[in-house]
């Protein structure tokens, strides 16, 4: 669904991405893994147009993401640490994002919607009812994270880009969110997810993109990586690779 070609990005002296080329296959959950500072968030932000690469290209459905904002109708985004205007209520922020997306959809009627003709929410796992009228100022980190998840799912986008979605969630909420992702995976939704909780990713991901120091160290199936390293668990496989790199 997404092809990234030779993406490079430098922040001052730091080379965050050094010619990254990867694919995010349609209908699969792809996991973006790597240690802190390996370029995961920068890569995700390049896909969304939040960070402008110095060189390289991102293609969505074969067409270059040439700065046309309507292409972001294809993507729903959940940021790592969300922040919202203090004086708005949860309901107002949900309305803001829904309204701007609806206006874009009216201008681009051929943009796909997931799932078709069905409004989507996470109400089943994160009930928003009592939160809708509450101001965002003073809400806990976990609650803000739930609002972020709700925004991403409500987007109705065929591709979800989730940056550390379970960080800050309590174990019950985190488990609900994983269940929902498994459900979406079974229905063929495309998801790109980054997380440090590798045990979660082992349950969810079919496709792995392993970034190390701004370069792609491995791209392929989860089973392929486990086989290559001879380890039974993703966590151990990644640790082994990083030990080998450090040596």
């Amino acid at each position, binding site marked *: 669904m997404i092809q990234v070609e030779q993406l490079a990005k430098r922040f001052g002296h730091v080379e965050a991405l050094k010619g990254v080329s990867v694919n995010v296959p349609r209908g699969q959950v792809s996991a973006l893994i790597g240690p802190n500072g390996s370029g995961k968030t920068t890569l995700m932000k390049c896909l969304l147009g939040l960070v402008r690469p110095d060189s390289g290209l991102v293609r969505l459905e074969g067409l270059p993401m040439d700065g046309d*904002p309507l292409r972001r109708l294809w993507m729903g985004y959940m*940021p790592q640490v*969300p922040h919202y205007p203090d004086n708005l209520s949860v309901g107002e922020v949900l309305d803001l994002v829904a*309204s701007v997306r609806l206006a874009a959809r009216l201008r681009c009627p051929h943009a796909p919607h997931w799932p078709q003709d069905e409004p989507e929410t996470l109400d089943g796992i994160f009930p928003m009812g009592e939160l809708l009228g509450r101001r965002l100022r003073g809400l806990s980190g976990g609650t803000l994270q739930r609002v*972020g998840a709700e925004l991403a799912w409500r987007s109705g986008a065929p591709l979800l880009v989730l940056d550390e979605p379970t960080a800050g969630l309590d174990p019950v909420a985190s488990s609900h969110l994983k269940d929902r992702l498994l459900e979406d995976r079974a229905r063929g939704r495309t998801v790109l997810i980054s997380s440090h909780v590798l045990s979660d990713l082992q349950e969810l991901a079919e496709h792995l993109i392993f970034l190390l120091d701004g370069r792609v160290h491995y791209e392929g199936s989860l089973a392929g990586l486990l086989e290559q390293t001879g380890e039974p668990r993703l966590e151990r496989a990644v640790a082994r690779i990083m030990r080998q790199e450090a040596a």
Partner: protein
Amino acid sequence: MSQILTILRHTLRDGLRSRVVYGLGAFFALAGWMMLRLGGDGGKALLSLLSLSLALVPLVSLTYGASHLYQARRFIGLMLAQPVPRHTVFLGLYAGLSLPLALAWAVGVALPLLATGAVQDPQALLLLLTAGVSLALIFSAIAFWVSMAVENRLKGLGLAIGSWLALAIGWDGMVLMLSYQLADYPLEGPVLALCLANPIDLARILVLLRFDLGAMMGYTGAVFRLFFQGNLGIALAGLALLLWVALPLGMAWRAFSRKDF
């Protein structure tokens, strides 16, 4: 168009609920009421409010604006991840920041003057409102530019406060020093240029051109009045203030359009 109205509706709602915005309006309403109570007539109260506004409106716009936008960075990122053009998000954020400040100040200033019927000269009040609203728009735009161009929050706030100190406090000293050091040369041209280069000075001159108060005009104001008297001067100062809104806003857009979030 509907996207910008949606964003504007929400950012205005956020701004109009801010304690700083309420505080600014309440402070000026109270100050105006006290000045009228302490024996000043409408004209004197208006001029006192002008002096207070020339210092406080830029300071509050700069510090509140910059800290608000540094805090809003992740929210800006979330909005830019939606199918919305960057300029739409930019305009929505700028209007949501500057208009509540301008509105709170204007209501705060106008309320006691109008409620007590103390203003004899409605044009003077109109000029004061134009000057203050322009300052809120200009310094919110400078705050926007600073918060987009300077990555480090502390450095950005330092730059914002530094620019206020230079324009609101240091400027008169600099003009005085220049006029003293270069007293033997014809200085009208450079002083006129200096006057156009400081929006706070321009706002002061805009209002004072309506009054015949040589003492408050200062050196730059006196030179300005020498060249442009009456309505021509008022129109020119107003136009220059309008250009002053466009300049930092253009710089802010340039920084915003190139920024990584």
